[in-house]
């Protein structure tokens, strides 16, 4: 019998297993809190599951640190943004806003694509003119393109707002003007003749490299500066955001999946989800199971019979096929999953707490409580529950990884809640798209490791609880 909570805590912390478990748990909680605070709650539905949000990202790209081990350096996907221009006011009333973007290029390959995005332009008099210029490390300058924002339409009054819902996107891969500019640049600077249509096949290699007829030369390394000049005719005119996107082969901490989603974000979002599922389900199942067990054990008779019979039957059911079948019929929302896990999970605890309750019922202090007129509920809650508490807590902790793993398994089979980003779902998508056969390890390994780590944390804590519950295992 544990004399006090303090004693229990002391035994618990005396093993290194528990210490490691608690450390890991704190890390998990910290990451979950970060995930919850850094992302809005609708992120899952609005952004994660929305392919359009990931349009500009490379698809199935390995993580950027792969470059540390690569012989030839791959180009890392870059999104350069600028909101604060350098403003020049010309004496004729025009205002020139210069947006600068710097890029340090040291990859051995060319970017896969290059585009510019202009968001939210407002003007009062004449539409602004936007120019895109590139200054290369070898000092040469290319004026890639120049265009005018669309003019005011009939019936419109200032301020004229453009590109607010849909940003203006210029893709050099599909813009003839850009090819022409490049062709001119090459002729002027290198004396080589490339027609715009030749350039259109791979414009990036001309912008970022020195041209050699016939082959793909290697990129020109060094500092590049992009200058976007917005010439406006009223000092009130403004642009919200200008972005330059350079398509790379690698991206981010954990790479991207087939839709282009940042796997690091997906993994991060998984933390609060799995902790939530695991802990909530485990707590409810434990409470339900243990309460039913104590009630059955204490009251006996018909109540006990019913509880025993039903727990016996439910306990004997094969969990996965039936759960799959029921989710198939009920639909795969997270609450359905939690409900089913509870419905199938409670008997485990009931059976054990019932036998403990049966023993306790005969104990002297229970008899004493009954004799001074204590109501059965008071006896149960005040006298019996505390006795089983260490055991229940240990079980509850042990259930958390069970449910996390079960949810992951269900998601893997495609039965998970599609609105919630979970690790199981990431793996399901990966598996379905043949990630293993294509060797897209960054998609497969990290979510799985997180599942294992989370489950492992709770297993460690549960193991640490064992000496508290079973005195024979104590070493001190």
């Amino acid at each position, binding site marked *: 019998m544990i004399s006090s909570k303090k004693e229990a805590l002391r035994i618990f912390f005396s093993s290194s*297993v528990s210490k490691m478990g608690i450390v890991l748990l704190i890390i998990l909680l910290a990451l979950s809190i970060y995930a919850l605070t850094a992302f809005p709650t609708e992120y899952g539905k609005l952004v994660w599951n929305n392919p359009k949000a990931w349009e500009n990202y490379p698809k199935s790209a390995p993580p950027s640190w792969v470059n540390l081990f690569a012989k030839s350096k791959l180009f890392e996907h870059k999104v350069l943004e600028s909101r604060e221009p350098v403003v020049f006011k010309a004496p004729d009333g025009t205002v020139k806003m210069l947006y600068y973007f710097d890029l340090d290029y040291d990859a051995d390959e060319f970017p896969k694509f290059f585009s510019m995005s202009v968001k939210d332009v407002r003007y009062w008099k004449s539409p602004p003119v936007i120019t895109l210029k590139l200054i290369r490390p070898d000092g040469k300058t290319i004026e890639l393109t120049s265009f005018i924002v669309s003019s005011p339409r009939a019936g419109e009054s200032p301020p004229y707002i453009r590109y607010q819902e849909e940003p203006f996107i210029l893709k050099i891969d599909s813009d003839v003007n850009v090819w022409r500019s490049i062709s001119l640049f090459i002729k002027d600077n290198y004396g080589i003749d490339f027609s715009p249509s030749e350039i259109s096949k791979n414009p990036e290699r001309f912008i970022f490299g020195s041209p050699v007829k016939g082959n793909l030369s290697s990129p020109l390394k060094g500092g590049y500066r992009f200058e976007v000049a917005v010439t406006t005719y009223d000092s009130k005119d403004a642009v919200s955001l200008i972005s330059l996107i350079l398509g790379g082969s690698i991206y981010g901490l954990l790479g991207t999946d087939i839709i282009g989603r940042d796997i690091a974000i997906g993994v991060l979002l998984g933390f609060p989800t799995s902790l939530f599922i695991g802990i909530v389900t485990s707590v409810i199942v434990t409470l339900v199971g243990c309460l039913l067990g104590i009630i059955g054990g204490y009251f006996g008779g018909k109540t006990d019979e019913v509880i025993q019979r039903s727990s*016996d*039957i439910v306990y*004997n*059911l*094969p*969990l*996965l*096929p*039936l759960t*799959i*079948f*029921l989710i*198939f*019929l009920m639909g795969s929302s997270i609450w359905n999953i939690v409900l089913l896990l509870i419905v199938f999970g409670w008997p485990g605890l009931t059976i054990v707490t019932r036998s403990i309750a049966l023993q306790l019922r005969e104990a002297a202090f229970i008899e004493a409580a009954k004799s001074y007129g204590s109501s059965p509920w008071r006896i149960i809650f005040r006298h019996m529950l505390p006795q089983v508490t260490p055991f229940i807590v240990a079980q509850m902790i042990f259930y958390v*990884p069970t449910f996390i*793993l079960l949810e*992951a*398994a269900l998601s*893997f*089979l*495609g*039965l998970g809640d599609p609105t919630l980003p979970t690790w199981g779902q990431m*793996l399901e998508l990966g*598996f379905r798209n043949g990630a*293993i*056969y294509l*060797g897209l*390890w960054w998609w*497969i*390994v990290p979510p*799985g490791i997180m*599942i*294992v*780590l989370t*489950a*492992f944390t709770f*297993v*460690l804590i549960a*193991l640490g609880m064992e000496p508290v519950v079973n005195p*024979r*295992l104590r*070493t001190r």
Partner: protein
Amino acid sequence: MSLLRTLTIRAVNLLLVLFLVLFLVVIIIGATGTSDKILMAIVRQEVSTYRQVTSRTITDPEALEKAVETYKRELIKAYGLDKPWYTRIGDMLRRIIFLDLGVSKSLQTFSGSNKVVDLIMERLPNTVLLVTTATILSFVIGLLIGVKLATAIGSRLDRALTYFSATSYALPTWWTGIIFILVFYFYLRIFPPGGMYSVPPPEDALMRFLDLLWHAALPIMVLVLATVGSNIYVTRTVVMNIAQEDFVLAARAKGLPEHIIRWRHIARVAAPPILTQLILGLAGSIGGAILTETVFGWPGMGLLFYQAIVSSDEALILGLVYVFTLVYVIARFVLEVFYVILDPRVRI
């Protein structure tokens, strides 16, 4: 106190479980209209067969249509589809028990039949093969290592194995399978990525057997890894507890040789709780089978289940749920027989 009586009671209990599950399932599919769908699909199948057969005798299209319509209406009446679902509970139960569930929407057996019963029967042995081998292996390894460990509690090896058991419990079977394929197939090219035989399978019987082993190696490894952790841990704990019991001391005091003590007094008494562990892991083994077969494309009931879900094939899903429960009940009964033989204390 009788062996037979206890076993009979257990058998009856398990059969009750099976029946109750079936009953609940029938009610659920009835209430959700799924049973109607399945029966209609059967009707449609029979109608199209009828159509084909009669189209040889009746060539006039109008007359043919009329005959088919009449036949269809008769069928609907015969199957009771014109009455609400709860009148058909008994019939539905019978259908499920005998797997008389019509045809699958999208799948076929190797021999070309697409009847639900044929599909399931074809895949069943493959699953049993995989799961039984893995369970036996896991049990034996768990036993051997667990017994060794029980005499070395607290040592570094013991601690290492405790961490290993914890990890083994936390590892999702299916993810381990995926990683294995990634490592052993994609990078090392030692094992095949899935399936049961190579395509085409070798003709020579010995080569065929080896081919089977080669394909089964990874799935079995994965299944064993998933369960061996807890087997080792439980064995070690149980043996350690029992070795400290008074009757072991008494046996030693009686001057019995050490091997008798180890086997008759420790191992024999430790067997029932370890067996309980197996029983508890049984439901997990079935789940593990479903996931592992899916990952490795092993043509067993598990993969069939996955395919059935993906294509919303109600009849097949229903049949599989039944067979899974049946297999589980039978396996559980077999294990309980062993348990009752080993532990006289539970006999009534």
